[in-house]
């Protein structure tokens, strides 16, 4: 029962209070904010969520191994976790890429340009490293990764909806496009800060 509670609490925290974009700016880039359709946004978010979860499953035994053999060095434990997480993320990406290309070619070619957005998306890496910094156990880290992915998807849908409404307004020429979108995200981030009440640690 405790496991379920900690899993869902971590997921909810990651989705709302420690939202990847609003609270930490992770995964923010012009390409991601300018995605054209709801369907592609949901595909990107879903892909990123699955990607993060699989990476946690692969990386957790590696973290345990690092913790057991670490005896102090110039690199801290967190730095070693970062390297291990990145390697595991790329292994998962390579497997997903090759498996979809071999067995699900139609899906693979539909998602081909999303692969590029996922590979260099720091939301997955950032979520796992944040969970490790907080010292979460396996179940809580899984919940945090899941919540982070869901929160990221919801944020992109919110941003897309905001873009649609801003397009109907008369915006000064210098602010059209990315500047007004960043202002919109900043105001949402202010709302999240109002709920949390303090700056989150990096």
């Amino acid at each position, binding site marked *: 029962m405790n496991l379920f509670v900690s899993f869902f609490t971590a997921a909810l925290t990651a989705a709302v209070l420690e939202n990847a974009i609003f609270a930490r700016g992770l995964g*923010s880039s*012009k390409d991601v904010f300018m995605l054209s359709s709801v369907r592609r946004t949901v595909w990107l978010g879903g892909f990123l969520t699955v990607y993060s979860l699989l990476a946690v499953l692969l990386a957790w035994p590696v973290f345990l191994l690092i913790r057991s053999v670490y005896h102090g060095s110039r690199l801290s434990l967190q730095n070693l976790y970062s390297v291990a997480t990145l390697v595991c993320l790329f292994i998962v990406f390579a497997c997903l890429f090759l498996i979809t290309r071999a067995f699900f070619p139609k899906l693979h070619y539909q998602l081909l340009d999303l692969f590029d957005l996922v590979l*260099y998306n720091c939301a997955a890496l950032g979520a796992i490293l944040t969970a490790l910094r907080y010292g979460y156990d396996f179940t809580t880290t899984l919940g945090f990764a899941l919540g982070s992915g869901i929160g990221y998807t919801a944020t992109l849908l919110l941003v897309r909806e905001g873009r649609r409404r801003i397009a109907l307004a008369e915006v000064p020429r210098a602010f059209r496009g990315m*500047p007004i979108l960043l202002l919109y995200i900043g105001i949402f981030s202010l709302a999240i800060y109002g709920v949390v009440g303090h700056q989150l640690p*990096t």
Partner: protein
Amino acid sequence: MNLSNLKNHRRRSRWAEGILSKNPVFVLGLALPFAVMITDTLKQAAAISVLFAISLIPSVLLAYLIGKRLPEWVMLITSSLFSMAIIMSCVAISSPVSTLQVVGQAAAVPPPEAANVLFPLIDQAMVDPLGIYSSILSVNTVLCFLCRRHARQKQRPILALADGFSYSLGFALALCLIAAVRELLGVNQLWGFHIPFPIRLAGMQMAFSGFIVTALFCALFRAVKRAVGGSYYRRNNRRPEKEVSMP
């Protein structure tokens, strides 16, 4: 329509396009997490800019060398891992005292006896507050953009080097501008030195102000870019003066 001046300007500015005309943060909208989160003090912005430059330039050169021999996704993964290796090396060899720290405090801090003549540019006190963002540098979107550009197209290696330098400078310029404004308005300091300023807004040190200040600078850059482009165009395309007929 005569666009010769504009074309000449664009050809000349190709070597330094990453600094202003295609600034990675303000114009291309890349590497936004760092612009938003790591700009609450000028020291952090300088530290992340140094790490960025040190990791970006060799990674772009590596992408240039291996890009045509490997599939794109393999090239991107290799460049990212190489970038992470460089960042971890910098973090591992960062010393307690750095050039930036000594310069910032002028003659007040005597160099330690065992230190070399050339200190590393960054120190542990500057790297530690970066948190997870120092590791995230290895998957930043500027690296992806430049690696793709120099792996796909037939560019000269000197252009890859020039792009690495110019985009690093552009990134540093963007982050330092945002950080200077946030630190000055947030805590009335610049690089840790107190600056008497009438306005003090505690909210400038929070994440949301990073988004807002970045947005304002983006708009400013866009307006200036339009004005400069417009002036080059108007030089060759002056409107003929209307003849005023006397009654």
